[in-house]
């Protein structure tokens, strides 16, 4: 059913979505190909998180379609979408605060049918985030911000996703932790997992992405390869605080 090669793993087409009488997304189309990290950038309130909620089935779009592996998933429930291989790391980490780190991670595998392999996957997640191994028996609320973000990412990985939706991983974290998270995301991509990354820190996001989309007031205004976007005058001025001629290595310290 899924053609090989560059066929889009995820494709969103002409999405309109919103809450109540407020429309947030207007005719949004986007594609994440297999093994690609795609950054979704844009100002607060542009609709980035809303787009992720539509993809993971938490919000029904008013118009448009989402397909994954060529299969339409627009009207499916979040539970079905997880089973198809899309895991969502929500903004603000959303761990289960009173449950232990181990319980949080294991709950990530809740929807899986192949339970025999879950223990091995837990080992792999703990190898990605060794600090979590020492914290397994602690309630999640006692973790530091960086550790919580690692646990949230680890929990999503326990679902063995082929596409990861990550919402603002750098929120409230120091540059060293952000760097470590981005390296893990790079590892995942090399392992064949596609990533749709929503990120406020445009420098960080574009430095680690293949391609990027700019979402402004609910519309996609620009899309290109990540390096090209980093050099784009409007992006440099609006998000990186750099004038067109400025020399600077892209990254969080450039802001």
């Amino acid at each position, binding site marked *: 059913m899924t053609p090989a090669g560059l066929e889009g793993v995820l494709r969103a087409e002409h999405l309109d979505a919103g809450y109540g009488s407020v429309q947030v997304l207007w005719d949004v189309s986007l594609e994440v190909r297999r093994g690609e990290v795609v950054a979704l950038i844009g100002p607060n309130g542009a609709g980035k998180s809303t787009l992720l909620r539509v993809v993971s089935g*938490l919000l029904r779009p008013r118009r448009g379609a989402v397909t994954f592996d060529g299969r339409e998933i627009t009207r499916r429930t979040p*539970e079905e979408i997880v089973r198809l291989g899309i895991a969502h790391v929500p903004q603000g980490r959303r761990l289960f605060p009173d*449950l232990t780190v181990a*319980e949080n991670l294991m*709950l990530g595998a809740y*929807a899986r049918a192949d339970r025999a392999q879950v223990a091995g996957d837990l080992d792999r997640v703990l190898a990605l985030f060794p600090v979590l191994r020492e914290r397994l028996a602690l309630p999640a609320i006692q973790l530091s911000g960086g550790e919580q973000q690692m646990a949230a990412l680890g929990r999503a990985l326990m*679902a063995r996703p082929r596409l990861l939706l990550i919402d603002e991983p750098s929120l409230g974290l120091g540059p060293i932790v952000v760097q470590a998270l981005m390296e893990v995301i790079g590892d995942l991509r090399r392992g064949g997992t596609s990533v749709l990354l929503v990120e406020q820190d445009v420098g960080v996001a574009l430095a680690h992405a293949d391609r990027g989309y700019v979402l402004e007031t609910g519309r996609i205004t620009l899309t290109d390869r990540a390096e090209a976007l980093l050099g784009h005058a409007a992006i440099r001025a609006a998000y990186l605080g750099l004038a067109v001629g400025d020399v600077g290595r892209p990254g969080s310290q450039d802001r």
Partner: protein
Amino acid sequence: MTPRTFGLGALAAAALAVAVAFPVFAGGYYVRLATGIFMFGALASAWNLIGGYTGYPDFGGAAFLGIGAYTTGILMLRAHLPFAAALLAGGALAVLAAVGMGTLLLRLRGHYFAIATLGFMLVLRQVAANLPITGGGSGMNLPIASAFTPFYYWMLGTVVLGALGGAIFPRSRAGYAIAAIRENQDAAQVLGIEPLPYKILAYASNALLFGAVGGIYAYWFTFIDPPTVFNIDFSIQAVVMTLLGGPGTALGPVAGAIILKILDTILTNISLFLHNVFFGALVCLLIIFAPRGLAEVLRRRGGIVRAIRAELEDSRV
């Protein structure tokens, strides 16, 4: 099995053995008192499933108690069914009602859910007061049982069922899903946990126990009318007992029921007025000083003892 859960299990088994033998050596008054304690222990355990583990503050448990009581009464009186069969039907109908109402109400959260469940209970009270088959406002007299000790064992059965449910629930696959839903429903959903079926499971288990207690209560008291069984007091007592003992723990609600019922009995004997004041004051004190119940207080004290011991050992070096 940790030493702690093993200790608790052994304690519960010993308590059960004493409870089974109790009517042999205790007088009628004490057997009746214990029957009442079991009844509320079962209600508190039931509420703990939906209110404690799932975090949905149900105030309409009496709706299911009433359904159980009236179903049992009607089937015994009008269909001449034996008590056990009528009771089973009462429990089953309570579960059906919970599945139906739960499908609607469990989409609400927090206060809205609490008020809606209360409303559901009040609607049923009005219905019972106006149907010919229930005897309307003048109530219903059930056949009088030949012996009263069996009610002790029926109620003991419900409280054991409730405590077992409370012990098994958090260790089951469904229990983990319910914990995730309680902690953060949106996060649970993106992990592939569909909240509604699990919430209905907890709500229906709660209804089964309320319904069974209602059926036993009706035959035990031999008279029911709408305000007696569709009575919010059952829910409030179950909530306070659970909060006292420890919501989200297996034996906390039962412990809460034992403590409160015994204190309540002593205080009622001293003064009818005082016992209500006491009840209100206790609720306030609980929420201020031990919002997670006695189980948490005991655990915390254990923690303090361990901390002091560790401190002493450090200073010795």
